[in-house]
Every structure is written in C-alpha cells, then in structure tokens.
C-alpha cells in the first residue's frame, strides 16, 4: 500500500486586497472582485515557497529518509539548472536521491504526486517529497493578476506510516490552448474566458472525475471531500452538481483568500482537506490544466500524527495587507525603481564557490565541535570556542531547523533595498551558534532584542547580467 505520509503548505505573508488592485488598474476596464490574493514578498519565488512547504511537511521527519524530491510548477526560475535540485539542497536532503521538475502545466502538481505514488509502489519503495509551488507573474491589469495567488504545498509520499492511502487514479490529456507562455516570454497569454470555462474547465474536470468513478466503480457521494480548483466560482459549483455531489462535499477553493495558485492549487486544497479529515474519510482530488488528473485517497488513523503543521489554515490566518499596488509592482520588478547608485552595484556569483559552499549557503549547514560541542556557522575547521580551539574535530550541523532569538538588530535606510529599511540582525541559535542574517517578513517596529526567530530560505538577488537567481537564508519572526 502506498499513500501520503505527511503534508505541509506555505502561503506568503502578504495579501493584496482585490480592492487595492482594482483601484490601481480600474482605468484599464478591470472589474472588482471580492477577496484577496496571497502575494510573495520581494525575496520569495517558486523555489523559496516550495522549500518552505517542504520544511512544513518534513517538520518531524528525518531528512535522511527522503529518497527524492519532485517539484511541480509553471513558474520555475531556471530553464536549465534543475529547480528541484536547488530546493533539495535548501532542504538539506541527501545527494543520493532522485530529483525532477514537473513543469509546463497547472496539472503538474497532481502529475508529480502520481509519479511519486508510482515510485512508492516500486521495488525501491521510495519516499518522495512532492512540492508544488507557483509564483506566476501576470501582466499588470490582466484578469490573471486578480486571479493568481502565490503559494505552495508539499506531500511526502511513501509506503508506510500513511495518513492517507492512495486508492486509484485516472488522467486525461488534451493540448488545450487556454493559456500559454513560450520560451523567453515573461507573461502568459490567455484565450477568451468563456472558451476556457465551457470547453476546458467545465469539461475536463467532470470527465476525469467521472472516469475515476467508473474505473474503480465508486460513488461520488462516498467522498467526504472533493477537491478541484475553482477558476470560475459558479462553474465550480455547477460541475459538482452535474457529477451528483452535494455542495457540502466541495473543498473550499481558496480563491478569495489565496487566489489560484496554479500547479499548487489542487495540492494546497488537498492539504486543507487533510487538515480537517477524520479517519476513514475518502478524498477525491482532481486538477485542471491540459486535461487533468484525478486521484482518490482514504484517510487513516494516523492522520492525527500530522497535526501541528502550519499547513493551509495557519498560513491563511497569518497575514499582512500589502497596502500599495506600486509596492507589488516594485517587488515583481514590473516597474523599474531607483535604488540609488548603491543599488547599481552588481553581484557576480562565482558558481564554483557556490557549489563548493552549497551546504553553507543553500543548506544553512555549519559545524559542531566534537570536542566541546559548540555549534558554529558557517562551517569552521578551527573551533571558535576560545577555551577549545580544536582543529578538524568538526561534524556537520544543520542550523536551518533551529530557532533563535534576536541578539541585536537594525533597520538600515542606507543599504539598497526595494523595501527599505533593510532589517537585519544577529541571531543566537537555540543550542548554540551565532551569526548575522537579514530579517524578512517583519516590520522594524515589531523587532525587539530577544525576539524569537526561525530561519527561512529566500531569494537574495537576481543578477540579470548573468541570469543567476541567488538564494540564502534569512531570519523571520515565528510565523504564528
């Protein structure tokens, strides 16, 4: 038997109220819509959110038991350089694992999950972490801008300690040109909404769910929750009605709280369903995008062991309004902003050094002295404890999963930043170790000496001259 061992999710802290958006772009003829979208901070992207969802999912699991990482997205920063390998390094997974990117369609999240489940069935019985994450750039004023939200989900798949067993799947594939983005293009194109709704969304979801029910001789009414993305609110309900499902069976689409998170959407909804699930519940999941995948799961007694994740609910509750549309444009680099001459200093990433120091830079690994037990970041060969000083007595030590407290901090208005002041400080880690880090997802006024923080994987810079997206770890207030 195979299935889901653990779940996690990530939703960025910022929300953009649709009213804020409407006020900014109404002159283009946009229509107001209720709700808000989750928007990634300026230092977040698909990979950082995937890593954050992965951390939530792996919270109490040993990283060494993960045999692979599949990343599903339509907004990967790299076309060449495997995005899943970056996330796997951030998560400090072993190197003897399988990584793969599932890209190009919003159904890639469910496809990655299906592939992972198939792997788990195999002789190697591998535990695969599936991360689905999307941070899609939409053209200012476009309908997608109001529809798309940023978020990520993660599911750990395997063959033991399952919180939900995998019961079956059915897929359909169509070359459906509702949305497309060619290589080298920044924004998606979309055909007329009515076409997408009537010829695609309304058809494929019903087809793939009906196919699943028929293949396994299931009754729609047996499912406690039915999960499929809600691109069109009215049609979302109409599909259920046509399938013979009751409105109460439908999982909330997150459309007015998070937005349409693309490849992450069905998996985020599945995570939300698992958060409320009881042992014995059957859950049906379907995706939409160039056809779709449908899967059925049954929740086990072990579901209780998965409590304590931030998952979807806590992340939705923990938010801050991004009050200005202009700031959103600046965060997405959609409007060139003056950072002063300091901001013109470019960083050239030495890739050989990045690879050599990947554990320090991307995995936030340091060392711990075997002689005196002092953790230290970054990795040292000579122990920093003045009473020890042992040479080459170190073992690897992971800091990314350690909390800390703010030893000291500042808010710097001189440093070039798209979101001044730059807040940074020195962090004392629980269990020992001290280093300085940028602080993110916080306001200067809320930072205090002694404030607890956790570490978060973030985008450090984008060097457009050499096409490098640089990442590093920052500290952030504990996300309640």
């Amino acid at each position, binding site marked *: 038997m195979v299935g889901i061992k653990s779940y996690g999710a990530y939703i960025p802290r910022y929300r953009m109220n649709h009213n804020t958006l409407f006020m900014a772009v109404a002159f283009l003829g946009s229509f107001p819509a209720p709700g808000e979208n989750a928007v990634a901070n300026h230092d977040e992207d698909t990979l950082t959110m995937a890593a954050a969802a992965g951390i939530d999912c792996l919270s109490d699991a040993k990283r060494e038991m993960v045999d692979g990482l599949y990343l599903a997205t339509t907004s990967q920063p790299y076309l060449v350089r495997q995005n899943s390998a970056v996330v796997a390094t951030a998560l400090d997974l072993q190197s003897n694992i399988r990584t793969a990117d599932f890209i190009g369609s919003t159904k890639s999240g469910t496809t990655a999950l299906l592939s992972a489940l198939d792997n788990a069935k195999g002789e190697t019985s591998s535990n695969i972490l599936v991360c689905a994450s999307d941070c899609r750039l939409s053209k200012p004023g476009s309908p997608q801008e109001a529809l798309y939200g940023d978020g990520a989900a993660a599911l750990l798949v395997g063959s033991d300690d399952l919180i939900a067993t995998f019961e079956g799947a059915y897929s359909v594939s169509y070359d459906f040109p509702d949305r497309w983005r060619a290589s080298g293009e920044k924004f998606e194109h979309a055909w007329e909404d009515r076409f997408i709704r009537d010829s695609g969304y309304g058809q494929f979801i019903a087809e793939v769910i009906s196919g699943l029910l028929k293949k396994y001789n299931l009754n729609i009414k047996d499912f406690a929750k039915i999960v499929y993305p809600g691109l069109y609110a009215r049609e979302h309900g109409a599909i259920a009605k046509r399938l013979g499902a009751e409105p109460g069976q439908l999982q909330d689409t997150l459309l007015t709280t998070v937005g349409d998170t693309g490849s992450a959407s069905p998996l985020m909804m599945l995570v939300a369903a698992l958060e409320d699930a009881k042992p014995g519940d059957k859950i049906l999941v379907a995706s939409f995008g160039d056809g779709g995948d449908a899967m059925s799961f049954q929740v086990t007694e072990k579901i209780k062991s998965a409590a304590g994740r931030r998952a979807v609910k806590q992340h939705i509750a923990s938010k801050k309004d991004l009050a200005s549309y202009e700031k959103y444009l600046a965060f997405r680099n959609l409007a060139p902003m003056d950072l*002063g*001459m*300091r901001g013109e*200093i470019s*960083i050239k*990433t*030495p890739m050989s*050094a*990045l690879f050599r*120091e990947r554990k*320090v*830079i991307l995995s936030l690994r340091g060392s711990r002295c075997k002689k005196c037990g*002092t953790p*230290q*970041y*970054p990795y*040292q060969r000579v122990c*920093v*404890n*003045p009473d020890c000083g042992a040479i080459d007595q170190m073992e690897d030590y992971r800091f990314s999963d350690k909390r800390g407290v703010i*030893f*000291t*901090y*500042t*808010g*710097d*208005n*001189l*440093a*070039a*930043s798209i979101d001044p*002041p*730059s807040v*940074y*400080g*020195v962090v*004392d880690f629980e269990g*020992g*170790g*001290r*280093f*300085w*880090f*940028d602080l993110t997802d916080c306001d*200067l006024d809320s930072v205090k*000496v002694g404030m607890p923080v956790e570490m978060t994987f973030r985008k*450090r810079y984008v060097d457009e001259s050499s096409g490098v997206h*640089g990442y*590093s*770890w920052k500290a952030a207030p504990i996300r309640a």
Partner: protein
Amino acid sequence: MAEGIRDKVAIIGMGCTKFGELWDKSAEDLMVDSFKECMEDAGIEKKDIGAAWFGVHFEEQSVGKGATPLSLTLKLPFIPVTRTENFCATGTEAFRGACYGVASGAYDIALALGVEKLKDTGYGGLPGGPSLMGTKNALIMPKLTAPGAFAMMATRYFSVYGLNPEEGKSMLAKVSVKSHYNGARNPKAHLRREVTEEQIMKAPIIAWPLGLFDCCGVSDGSAAAIVTRADMAKKFRPDPIHVKALQIALSSGEELMYTKWDGAHVETTSRGGKSAYEEAGVKNPRDEISMAEVHDCFSITEAVTMEDLQFSPRGKVKEDIEAGRFNIDGPQPVQPDGGLKCFGHPIGASGLRMLYEMYKQLQGKAQSPERQIKNPKLGLTHNLGGFPPMNIVSIAIIGL
C-alpha cells in the same frame, strides 16, 4: 616579555591636508599636499628618507593596488615602499611599519603616508558591505552597511544598560554635539558647523537608532608622518614627539560566532587598550591619558570606546558624557580636532590624521588658543576597522 616600542621612535614631522569633499583634488594631489607639509615640518630632504609605508584601503576607488602610487607620485628615488591595508587601521598600520622600520635600525628615517579619495563613488557612505568580506560572506551575510553594523551595537548597548531609545539617543547626541563644537573651530575639518542636541535628535534615521548626525562624514584627505630613532630625534627639532605604544588587535571570530560577547562593547579595543597601556607604562588611563582621538565613525563607537579604553567605567559612559568629561575644556578631551565626525573618514588617512592632532597638541601648536589643550602629556589614537563583531583595532600612544 617583549620590550615593546616605548620611547624607541620619535615623530619629527607631520602633515595633514584639509579633509572634505575635494572635488578638484585627486588622491595624488592629496599625497603631495600632506607630504609637503610633513617634509617642511621635519626640515629634511627627500634623499634622507630610507623607506616609506603607504596606507590606502579602497584602492579600486582611487590610486590602484600596490605601493607604486606613492613612489611615482612623490618621485621617491628607488627606496623600499610598502603598502599597508587593514581596514580603518590602514593609516596606523603605515605608521607602525615606519616606526618598526626605524626602531629595528634598518632605516634612520621613514615616511608613513595615508590617503583616501572616497568622493568618486557617486553616493554617500562607504562602498562595500559584504563584498569586502570575501566570496563566501558576500553570499551569506546580511547586505549590511557600516551605519547598520554599528547601529546594532547601539541597539545592544541600549538593551544591556536599560536605556530607552530616547535616553540612548540623547546620550549619543551629546557625543556629536561635542565633536561638532570642536570641528567648527578647526580649519582643516570637513564639517565646520555646530549642531544642537535637538537637531541631532530630529535628524533623519540612517540605520535605527542612528540618525544622520550619529554618523561621521565621508571625505577625501591625506596625512603623513616622518619618524626617526629616538636617539637621533633632537638633531631635527627641539620638540620631537615620542611613540609610547603601538598595538593592533583583531577579532578571533568568537564575537560573531560564539555566544559570550555582549555586543555592547568592542573586545578588540578592550584588549588592545590593555596591551597599549602595558607597553606605555600607563597604570590609570582615566587619569594619565591627557587626550584622545578615537574612532568615532558613529557616536555609539566613541561611547563604547570610552569604556573599552577604561576612560569610563563599564556602563557609565553616559554619566561622563553628560558631565562634559570629554569636551575640549573637560578633564580628558576626546576628538579635540572634531574627530571622524567632522573630518570624515578617508580610511587610509584617518589614523595619521589623528596622530597629527595629538602631535600638534603635544607641541602646543594647535592652530588657535581656544583649540589648545593645556599641558597634555600623553595622547592616544584609536581606529576600529570592520564591524563590531569582526574587526581590527589599532591603538597608538604618543607623548613628550
């Protein structure tokens, strides 16, 4: 126990340019200016110089690498010239090299010259941050600036000693009021305007809690010294100034990476100070050091330096600041020339500029009577390069 440098070397000439945003002066112009004053003061000729040490930090901004910028500019006749670079201790390192050169007997007369041309960057403040700290740090450190790095020490000081932001900022403001008072009276200073505590408190924040007037200026400048063996000094002038101590102390990494440092003091200054006092035979620095030029890159730096150098008891500098102890007419004047606050901080020149002020004060030759400190015996200079948790400190003590 090593003998140390005390009374082995004397300064027989010094020069210092006006500091400022010298748009029409190149680094080479500044070198010639400080050299000219220095040579006239020493009364020697170029052929008398046995070797030279040349301090410059941001060589990319101005003169280029190596020591040839000095030899080529001054047309030094094929003598040894060494470039020193050690962050803000760069100028003092050049001086230390020259002193050790003559103390060893290798040379009779040596030149130390520091220069920095900072105002060709196009922006305020210093260039750099993480990129100055090597490949790995550039990819993991916060993208900090100098004001931010030192602001974190102010945050920490306020926290450790229970000062609310108002109390803390008021203490720091008084540091800058004093330095501006002194700078206003010094024709060589860059910023020559008195400011009030109220102006300082209301100034825009650069890096919380530090405001504009908590930060030193950024300027161009050069300073130079001619040193010789103490036993030869009187041949050149009746009032040579003797070197009593030269110390450098560098962070071991424990401040930043171990968890014992309190963040409200600078360990290198504290340790370097002890070594310097031992070398100079100073038992009670609060009483014996007549005056000092310390590294007031930021007001908080000067405040904690007073404690680290034992001018004030730990945690008590506020009382001394409020009592006017460090004012020009106080019992232990600090930054009598206006400090980095009013001179700005052309990195390679600052250490020698501080020595210039101490040297002139010790000779009774401050430009005007209102600037002259009465009968000083020992003057101390101090530089802090880098950031509070990882830095280089240089301390020099000179006297009659």
